[in-house]
């Protein structure tokens, strides 16, 4: 696992981003060591106003002129042992959000409280000590395993790195983890190319869970798999959650999978979260027009149920010059004048159902 983590890091723009952006904000944050609002004691993870900008265009001296606002002011919290599903179209910042939360990319602004600590302010050594508790399962099981390492070594590497078990017991421990993830023990010395997609995804899951994490980001873990294999992996993820009391962020564009696995769902559009609610609430009565359109677009495997489909016109706009006001107004069927000018507030409309839309009272 640690080799995966290290691979992700040294992309120059990721490291650069925070230096020029919001330098003042960082200074302000240092003064106020305690969070402005008290943290929810039940929440394992709380994200406040998280921002991640990538420089899109630079001038001659390398100073960025414009930014891709991949994650723009996103706030939410996750209680222990629950799953938050993040849905949205491609390019809406789902993956960036997941990686920024784990500090695989440093955030441009905002706070991420994991277990009461703002991980954006941790020093590298402190962060490394925290890493085993926060893990990620990547989308593509074909490219996230080192082809030169046998399975046992892949799973055991991070365990050895973090010295979770004594050296002598390492192999035994790895075999135990493999067994719990449905991998027979004679796979220990095989190489990743010998496995199919489903088996590889099991290896990825074993790699992440070997560190006994408390929090796992699942970044589209089943998108690359066949339907019958998808069900196996989803069941495995659910079993492990029960067994280990894990907290998941489940990123996917497949709404039916998200509905199945999540307790809460957040809908993202162009880097912002437009709706956040419990799974039942959001599927029963989606409030934001985008959520409505997104849900109605899902094909239902029942020939008699032709749902009233809301077809969104056009494509998702470029995140470099995101539309003013409400970012969705260019494709919205209920667009009003105010939508083009003022960005709506992300507000709670009862029962923890948060929406950012002018259709609902703003005060």
């Amino acid at each position, binding site marked *: 696992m640690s080799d995966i983590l290290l691979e992700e890091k040294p992309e120059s723009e990721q490291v650069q981003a925070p230096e020029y952006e919001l330098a003042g904000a960082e200074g302000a944050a240092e003064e106020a060591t305690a969070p402005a609002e008290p943290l929810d004691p039940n929440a394992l993870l709380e994200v406040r106003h998280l921002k991640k900008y990538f420089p899109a265009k630079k001038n001659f001296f390398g100073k960025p002129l414009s930014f891709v606002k991949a994650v723009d002011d996103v706030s939410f919290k996750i209680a222990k042992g629950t799953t938050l599903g993040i849905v949205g179209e491609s390019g809406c910042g789902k993956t960036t959000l997941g990686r920024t939360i784990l500090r695989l990319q440093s955030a441009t602004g905002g706070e991420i409280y994991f277990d009461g600590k703002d991980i954006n302010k941790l020093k590298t050594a402190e962060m490394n000590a925290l890493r085993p508790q926060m893990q990620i399962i990547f989308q593509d099981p074909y490219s996230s395993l080192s082809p030169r390492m046998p399975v046992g070594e892949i799973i055991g590497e991070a365990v050895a790195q973090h010295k979770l078990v004594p050296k002598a017991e390492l192999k035994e421990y790895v075999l135990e983890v493999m067994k719990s993830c*449905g991998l*027979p023990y004679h796979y220990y010395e095989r190489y990743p190319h010998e496995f199919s997609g489903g088996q590889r995804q099991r290896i990825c899951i074993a790699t992440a869970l070997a560190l006994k994490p408390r929090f796992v980001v699942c970044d589209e873990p089943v998108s690359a798999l066949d339907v019958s294999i998808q069900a196996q992996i989803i069941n495995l993820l659910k079993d492990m959650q029960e067994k280990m009391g894990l907290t998941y962020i489940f990123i996917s564009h497949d709404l039916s999978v998200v509905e199945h696995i999540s307790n809460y769902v957040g809908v993202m559009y162009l880097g912002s979260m437009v709706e956040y609610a419990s799974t039942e609430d959001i599927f029963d009565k989606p409030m934001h027009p985008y959520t409505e359109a997104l849900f109605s677009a899902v094909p239902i495997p029942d020939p008699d149920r032709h749902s009233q489909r809301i077809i969104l016109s056009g494509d998702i706009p470029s995140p470099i010059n995101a539309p003013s006001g409400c970012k969705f107004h260019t494709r919205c069927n209920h667009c009003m004048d105010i939508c083009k000018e003022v960005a709506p507030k992300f507000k709670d409309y009862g029962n923890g159902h948060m929406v950012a839309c002018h259709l609902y009272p703003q005060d």
Partner: protein
Amino acid sequence: MLFKKQDKTQSESSEGAEVKKSAHKGNSHYLSAKESREIAKSNARAMREYEKKKRVKHVDESVYTCKMQDENNIVEFDDLHTYFFTDAGVAKAVDGVTFSIPKGATVGVVGESGCGKSVTSLSLMQLVQAPQGQIVGGSIRFNMGDKAYDIAKMPINEMRKIRGKQIAMIFQEPMTSLNPVFRIGYQLDEMVLLHTGCTKEEAKAHSIEMLKLVGIAAPERVYSCYPHELSGGMRQRVMIAIALSCDPRLIIADEPTTALDVTIQAQILDLLREIKQKIDGSIMLITHDLGVIAEMADYVVVMYAGRVIETGTTEEIFHNPLHPYTIGLQKSKPVVKRKVDRLYNIPGQVPNPIDMPNFCYFKDRCDKCIDKCNGEYPHFVQVSPTHRVSCYLYEEKGAEGGSNE
């Protein structure tokens, strides 16, 4: 290629499988040097033979003219066999596929990756990767209106006249199937110029009209764009425009929406449905998404490991699925607003297409397996005039009437 990869991964059968004797000896797909030499030799012989047949210059039209079984069908696949001669042995990618596509209907072909859906459609276009891939048996009857041709026997020159004009294909990846170094306009015109023999100006006018038809807002601008300037949804629209530009009688849509987002997918599916009405053609829709099938198709063909295991109308397949694989496939996919605690999962994996045993291929993964399943591959049982299933569970009920294979 695909099958070679599968071969290597084959040996791990399922979770908790019993331990193999040792890493290599227990692996039934381990080949000795002698064995692989023999395979290579026999492959070369077989491939040479098939290629020789294809190279014959002047083929009389009577050789590939045939008669449709039912004049209302546009295509009839009859016991089609397409094999790939790989280094690990002969992979029977399509092994006795029989189904037909009626005129003006949408037929959905579902199955997991590697089950032969794409190879079936490529066989219909004669685009199977040669010389490794060869149509070794069976026939594909294509209705040309006044006559019918057997595509499996057609020479390449004749096939070129049909490909694109009569049968058009929309490929899965709009990102890779457009040529990045040519403008959209050129790629659209190419097709029209080749098949209709009109002038360049006419071709351009036609292309722009096609772009308008598929719902592109600024067709003149897109006409002079390069593919990289367009988004995924736009590219897929261009692909559809290219496919439609010669008024084909049959459109093969090979996973047209897999690479797209749900909202864009909804747009494209709507477009396909609309266009089918307009041109009054048939669509062969290949996908692994049961939701897409339920919305689009009139008939469904379920494939597994190179064979058709169940066919029927969409209502029959979705309301009364019979084959355990079809049932499992439907149960393993979560559905919005249909809450289940735990998803059903089909244990194990798709079998290796090399050296298939002569019993039901689904036997090892089936939870309704009966003694009879150890016998040879089950025949088709006709459950209703349109519904066929190949499973021993239904053998008694359906009588002997429908044994098509």
